[in-house]
């Protein structure tokens, strides 16, 4: 009798659904809200949207930007809406990606004047760009494509060739944008983020994976990575270092975002079970131990959203900067008192051990209690041939250049 009632109720529900077929199933909350407690439902914390049309640098308080003595920061190019990841071409072209817009830009430096060209249009969240041996690789939400000889055809690039497709078979919510970099093994490394704030990832989600551009065959390199939108290889050890965003809605100071090292293939960095190497998740961490997982090298601060990172190998900066990491902290939004919004320097000794970590460029964060608290947001860093450092700001659509001049 009981089961009959269940069945008839199910039948009725199905019938009702069919009768009102024009009503789609209720839309879930946006992934940034996923994992909130009922009490947090009335929180006013929210991610910040970029100015999608860009803002002219002439309208911004650039004098607030601070760098250490001897360094100088200036606007290198503006008018690049939602400037995200950066890649440098052999001939000096700076390629710039975005996430909400659908373009890839090329900035060409001609006699000190910079021209911004829109070289690719209509792409699907083309957040990842990497350049190698004349070829630009672009990671979209669902695929990676290659554009051979791109620097000779900036005004009329040929159709991209697919390296790998099917990277987003279910149009996943959450962290679907990809960072892209070529490893010392010649393979293209990219993240597949978690499909929400704190959820059980599916097949090859919450990973850093790689694909051989010659064969299109991929494998997963690191697991338990909630979302990494920045990685690079140590110039001496060749090990993969990567930034990772911790989960949200566990409080202002928990958990910390991470800087990790993958010393070999197959390591698991803890998500969704263990955060910051030592804190079990209140839901997924039950009955687990953080000792199962590889802890971060250092904690980068709660909710600071570390993105692009590069090792500094140039000769322009003083010797102590050699092989240091520069990384962009894009947040925070998920804490009541904001922090971050800077370029962060991680100093390593010759053995690759971290000896110091501190903000290097500050000044975007102007009022830690305000909404918005900042007027710019660093996304990626790029070392230029002369040893200067570019970084992108997607909030305003600007590239800045940091240089050093001996006193």
């Amino acid at each position, binding site marked *: 009798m009981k089961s009959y009632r269940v069945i008839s109720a199910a039948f009725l529900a199905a019938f009702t659904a069919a009768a009102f077929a024009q009503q789609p199933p209720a839309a*879930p909350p*946006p992934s940034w809200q996923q994992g909130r407690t009922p009490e947090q*439902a009335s929180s006013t914390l*929210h991610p910040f949207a970029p100015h*999608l*049309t860009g803002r002219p640098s002439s309208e911004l308080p650039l004098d607030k930007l601070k760098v250490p003595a001897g360094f100088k920061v200036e606007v290198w190019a503006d008018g690049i809406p939602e400037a995200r990841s950066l890649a440098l071409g052999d001939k000096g072209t700076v390629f710039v990606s975005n996430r*909400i817009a659908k373009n890839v830009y090329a900035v060409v430096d001609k006699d000190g004047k910079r021209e911004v060209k829109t070289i690719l249009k209509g792409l699907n969240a083309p957040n990842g760009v990497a350049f190698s041996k004349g070829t630009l690789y672009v990671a979209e939400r669902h695929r990676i494509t290659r554009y051979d000889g791109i620097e000779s055809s900036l005004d009329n690039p040929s159709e991209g060739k697919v390296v790998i497709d099917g990277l987003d078979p279910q149009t996943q*919510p959450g962290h679907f944008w990809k960072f892209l970099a070529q490893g010392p093994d010649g393979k293209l490394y990219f993240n597949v983020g978690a499909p929400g704030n704190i959820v059980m990832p599916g097949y090859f989600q919450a990973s850093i994976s790689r694909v051989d551009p010659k064969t299109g065959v991929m494998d997963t390199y690191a697991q338990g990575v909630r979302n990494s939108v920045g990685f690079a290889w140590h110039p001496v050890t060749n090990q993969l270092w990567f930034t990772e965003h911790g989960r949200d809605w566990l409080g202002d100071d928990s958990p910390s975002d991470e800087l990790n090292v993958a010393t070999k293939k197959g390591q698991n960095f803890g998500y969704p079970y263990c955060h910051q190497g030592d804190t079990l998740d209140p839901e997924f961490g039950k009955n687990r131990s953080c000792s199962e997982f590889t802890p971060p090298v250092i904690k980068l601060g709660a909710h600071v959203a570390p993105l692009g990172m590069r090792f500094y190998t140039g000769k322009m900066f003083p010797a102590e900067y050699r092989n240091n990491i520069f990384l962009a902290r894009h947040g925070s939004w998920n804490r009541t008192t904001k922090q971050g919004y800077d370029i962060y320097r991680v100093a390593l000794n010759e053995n690759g051990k971290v000896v110091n970590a501190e903000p290097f460029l500050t000044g975007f964060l102007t009022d830690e209690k305000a909404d918005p608290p900042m007027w710019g947001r660093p996304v990626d860093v790029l070392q230029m041939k002369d040893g200067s450092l570019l970084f992108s700001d997607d909030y305003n659509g600007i590239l800045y250049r940091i240089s050093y001049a001996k006193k």
Partner: protein
Amino acid sequence: MNRSLRSAAAFAAALSFFTASAASGADPQLCAACHGSEGNSVISANPSIAAQPGQFISMQLFQFREGNRKDPQMTPMAANLSNKEMNELAAYFSKQKAAAPSHKTAPESAAAGPNLAQQFNCVQCHGPALLGQQHIPRLAGQQFEYLRTQLRGFKAQTRADLDGNMTSAAQALSDKDVEILADYLSGLPAP
């Protein structure tokens, strides 16, 4: 104004718009045919753009141009605007004063509205006085029919949405809630 008249007005505006924009930057006066003098709409289906946050205006123009948000009138209007022109229009209209709302809220809606605006988290993003902020629009004093159409669109999951936030928020609204909220919000004063 009926629909065909509205379309004719929009078409005329679009024509003069393209003629003018070929010569100079975007002229805010060309938006007036539909959005009213200084951006204060007098047509219930058309939104007021005066005193909207600048980032909201430029983002919507961007979304129309890029095809992420579609509208038979606005899509062609935005099609040829540069980012700079969008920023200029946004700066101009964000600085205009909002007119006193012409909509008269029914007493029942005026009584129920504040609680609904709390319960459905409108104030959480649009602000305690529902004046909008950053990329989030001012709702206070917005046109009734426009508000109702947007809420229905979000509920039906057909209205463009940057991150799915409004689509999600609208799922909890009954048809009655939509009526009450639109009636309440459109009668609220905007400074």
